[in-house]
């Protein structure tokens, strides 16, 4: 290893990057764009469910029941109906997600401790949202029903009555259940994978295309020196991209890093080593920038997006897909990142992830050196 040769390559690489502001801009602007898109447009939260009510009862009880829905930010009362046949049209047009029908005699039956049926009609076209909405409706209704039960017992003379189970879930780490907290670590994984792998692959394949790689091959530059010299500048750019996303997500979405910045830096660095090695490895498989671009996006963006746990949970995947996901470095990095950023836990909690990332980095680094050495034969 000659430090001078590595430095020479690094200086050259940085000069070339600075001569090409368009690419540099893309490397830094695309992440911000993705952040805005994912942060604002894609939200997994179900809030402000549009609600329509058909109240056949119109008593103090039915109004009280309705109020218990509107106390939370989960439901917004959009319409008060007066005929049953209005409901279908509203759901068809997507004006409301839930339509609730309170039957005549609701107040009387509740007061008498009788069983009452409430009908909730839900737009099920988005299964996830519908399931969440149904859950909320059930929770609010159960809570109301419990209070009504206790009240009727009290009226019957039974006092000091407590409910059997007082279920009070306490959500750790992300108490407001905001999906930004969950999505932004995934976004960092996706963006880093993209910038690191794509930029290294393209920078090497470009040299192959232009013939400068051959010139370097006849020089005393060793494969490892070339890899280090070419990847370190992109390592810095990737780190800058990561810092940009972190800063922007704090400003725009209030997402903070709960854990240690040092842990975050170390894990990110290990992940990036693996990505850069993977980029070099991919560059040995293609001689044209188009092929390299396709290969890199196909092998990094898509699997990372789908299989790293970014949006889609592992437990819903068929076992074979789950098995494949174990091969993705993004999976481990994302788990470690969520542990650091959202849970704020320290190193032992994500030791296995770090180990997996180290193995990935060693494997891609080693393989790419071997491939570069063997290119001539």
């Amino acid at each position: 290893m000659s430090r001078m040769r590595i430095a020479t390559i690094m200086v050259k690489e940085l000069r070339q990057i600075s001569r090409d502001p368009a690419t540099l801009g893309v490397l830094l602007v695309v992440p911000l764009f993705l952040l805005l898109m994912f942060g604002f447009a894609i939200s997994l939260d179900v809030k402000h469910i549009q609600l329509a009510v058909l109240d056949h009862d119109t008593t103090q009880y039915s109004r009280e029941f309705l109020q218990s829905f509107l106390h939370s930010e989960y439901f917004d009362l959009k319409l008060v109906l007066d005929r049953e046949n209005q409901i279908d049209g509203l759901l068809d047009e997507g004006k409301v997600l839930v339509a609730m029908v309170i039957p005549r005699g609701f107040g009387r039956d509740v007061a008498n401790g009788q069983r009452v049926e409430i009908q909730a009609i839900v737009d099920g076209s988005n299964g996830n949202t519908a399931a969440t909405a149904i859950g909320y409706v059930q929770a609010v209704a159960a809570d109301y029903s419990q209070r009504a039960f206790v009240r009727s017992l009290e009226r019957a003379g039974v006092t000091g009555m407590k409910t059997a189970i007082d279920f009070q879930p306490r959500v750790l780490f992300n108490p407001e259940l905001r999906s930004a907290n969950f999505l932004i670590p995934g976004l960092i994984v996706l963006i880093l994978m993209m910038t690191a792998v794509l930029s290294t692959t393209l920078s090497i394949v470009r040299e192959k295309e232009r013939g400068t790689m051959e010139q370097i091959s006849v020089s005393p530059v060793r494969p490892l020196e070339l890899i280090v010299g070419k990847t370190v500048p992109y390592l810095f750019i990737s780190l800058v991209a990561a810092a940009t996303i972190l800063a922007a997500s704090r400003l725009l979405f209030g997402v903070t890093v709960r854990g240690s910045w040092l842990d975050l830096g170390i894990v990110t660095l290990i992940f990036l080593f693996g990505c850069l090695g993977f980029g070099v490895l991919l560059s040995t498989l293609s001689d044209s920038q188009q092929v390299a671009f396709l290969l890199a996006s196909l092998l990094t963006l898509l699997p990372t997006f789908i299989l790293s746990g970014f949006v889609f949970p592992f437990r819903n995947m068929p076992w074979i897909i789950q098995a494949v996901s174990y091969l993705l470095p993004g999976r481990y990095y994302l788990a470690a990142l969520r542990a650091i950023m959202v849970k704020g836990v320290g190193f032992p909690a994500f030791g296995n992830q770090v180990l997996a990332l180290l193995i990935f980095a060693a494997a891609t680094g080693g393989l790419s050196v071997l491939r570069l050495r063997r290119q001539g034969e």
Partner: protein
Amino acid sequence: MSQPMDAGTGSATTAGPAIRAQELTKRFGPFVAVDSVSFEVPAGSIFGLLGANGAGKSTTIRMLCGLLAPTSGTATVAGIDIARNPEGVKRRIGYMSQRFSLYNDLTVEENIRFFGGVYGLSDRELVERQRETVRLAGLEGREKLLARELSGGWKQRLALGCAMLHRPGIVFLDEPTGGTDPISRRLFWDVINELAQAGTTVLVTTHYLDEAEYCNELVLMHAGRIVAQGSPGVLKREVITGSVFEVECSDPVAGMSALRGVPEVRETAIFATRLHVSLDRDQDIETALAALRSAGLSVSGHARIVPSLEDVFIRLIDRNGAATE
């Protein structure tokens, strides 16, 4: 066919040949790109490797530079075995290919600095060699231009300068003048001659036969094998034993077929609008001219010429093609 080296030019050395290839062979699957090639390049000479595209010239050069491992055979460059110590070879050679491998988005100066750094030149050496390289390439005052803004000839000379920054004793040039204009080619060969004068061994591949005339020693390759070897002068004497006449006639193509049956005519070839007719004896030209006239062609002139390398190679390739078919 092996001839004694033309010792007319090039500085003689006591340390043996600069390059020695022995039975060098490269196969790609079933395809034999280079087939048992042996030659020696005397130190300080300009050595030409000639042949059509696909003859195996580039593959041979790439093996000698350590870019490709030979399938079999051995070679030494500057006395170093290419298979055993390719890194040692790389430090002692310069290499430039037809693609003039420069970084288009770097300036003249930055390209020089990069290649200088790669070869481990000190800052002081770099300053001095940069000045020399810029002078050699005729790029004074253009140091801050991007390489992409240079014309082909300048790029070519700059690429050669970059390949020579570390002062290698041996330089490999793979079709260095491909795709440039005749004046640039001429200027480029002036630079090559300057290098050879200074004692550098130059191994150059080309398919321009006029360029082959500048070489001290030539090897002609065809289908992976060496067909002929020697200095241009020796090759002309050895291969073309008779005389060559240039004949101007109304229809060279018809003329060629008219001469096909004449026993005194060894060979005919068309050079632009003229015919080159090879004969064993000068006086046979009358027989050839008579054959043309009796075929109804008008002959407007004829002259005995000194055979060019092109005549030599057409003769050799024809002979070789006939032997292999």
